[in-house]
């Protein structure tokens, strides 16, 4: 009978000097971490960099992993911190296009004229509108949306990863969807 190796067992192997063990962790989680970073940052290049930085930070802090939390939660926390740090740096340097879009659209969600609400739900323009709307959300709301929609985590997994109560996760997700709804509606009205 073949038993799948858990993430924690692989981390233990890595801690005992198995050079290939951490590579298995990367293979298991790099897609999800990249999806999280992409949802958080909105740009492919930034997401790639954030993903690499996440695994580098995890490798450096491997001995600090206590095993109390899941490896997945630990990686998500590192990734979210990497994305937030990256956004702050970009804001300071004013280099990120996402940040500039966010600044433009956070206060008033500007949109092309002539879009009906029905068309907002469909079509290519809607994708751009949704991306801008998600990127304009506050970080604590955005990360919940991204972890739910991009990583398809359960409320419990999100709560574990963010070390939050389950009710808070649900409340944040509900609030995030309501804000998205309002911004997309405004986008359609404009």
């Amino acid at each position, binding site marked *: 009978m073949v038993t799948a190796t858990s993430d924690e067992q692989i981390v233990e192997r890595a801690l005992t000097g198995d050079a290939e063990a951490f590579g298995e962790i*990367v*293979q298991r989680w*790099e*897609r999800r971490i*990249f*999806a999280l970073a*992409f*949802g958080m940052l909105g740009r*492919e290049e930034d*997401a*790639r960099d954030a*993903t*690499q930085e996440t695994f580098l930070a995890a490798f450096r802090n491997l001995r600090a992993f206590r095993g109390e939390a899941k490896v997945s939660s630990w990686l998500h926390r590192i990734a979210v911190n990497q994305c937030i740090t990256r956004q702050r740096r970009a804001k300071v340097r004013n280099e990120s296009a996402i940040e500039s879009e966010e600044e433009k659209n956070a206060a008033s969600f500007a949109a092309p004229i002539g879009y009906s609400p029905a068309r*907002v*739900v469909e079509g290519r323009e*809607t*994708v751009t*509108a*949704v*991306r801008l709307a*998600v990127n304009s959300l506050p970080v604590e709301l955005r990360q919940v*949306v991204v972890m*739910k*929609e*991009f990583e398809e985590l*359960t*409320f419990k997994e999100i709560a574990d990863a963010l070390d939050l109560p389950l*009710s808070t996760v*649900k*409340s944040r*997700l*509900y*609030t995030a*969807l*309501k804000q*998205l*709804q309002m911004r*997309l509606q405004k986008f359609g009205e404009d």
Partner: protein
Amino acid sequence: MKENAPNCGRESDLIAFLYGELNDVEARAFQRHVRDCASCKAELASLRNVRESVVNWRNQSLGVISSPIIESAVAGVVHQKPSGLAAVREFFNLAPLWMKGAVGFASVLFCLFAGLAIARLREQLPVPPVKNPSIASSQQEFDALVERRVQEELQKLNNSQQQHSSVVDNAPARIPSRRMTNRGSLPSSLPSEQARRPLSKTEREQLAADLRLTSAKNDSDLDLLDDRINQ
């Protein structure tokens, strides 16, 4: 946030139902509630639309973007064994516009020259043989033709032999007559001027000796003969 929530205060169940995280009993109970609660019904429909929009964005974004590590691994495999076609495509993708134009122009020239060469080659090719009735195409026809040609040659040969034999038979009669008519004159091979001049003494003696008409010692007869010939 509460002001945006449904009046019934069941936003937690609504969000859990939206993401399918209610168990069967809870889901059925909430569905019954939605039938009666217009606020929850409208809220569920609008949030479902928002969620679908986010999912579309995710699918379109992550559908065309692969993760960095997998992409690099795939790229490594691809670069290890690139196919010829892929290499050509990569070359043309990386080539500048002027190089693409030059390659296109060269291709057009190549096709042009190739067409001309093929046309010339067709002109130089031997014409396919047309059936000629005079030329034998089978072994029997060939033999018959040879036999006919042999017969023709034999006929010609016989004709020529007959003509030759008739010439030989007529030759003695013609020679004397010729000798008779040319008696006293020079052979016909000599020029006419030379034939008309008077013969010298030596020539007369030689001629008399040849004709054995008289003895060379008899000068008187020779003189008479000379006079006679000269006359």
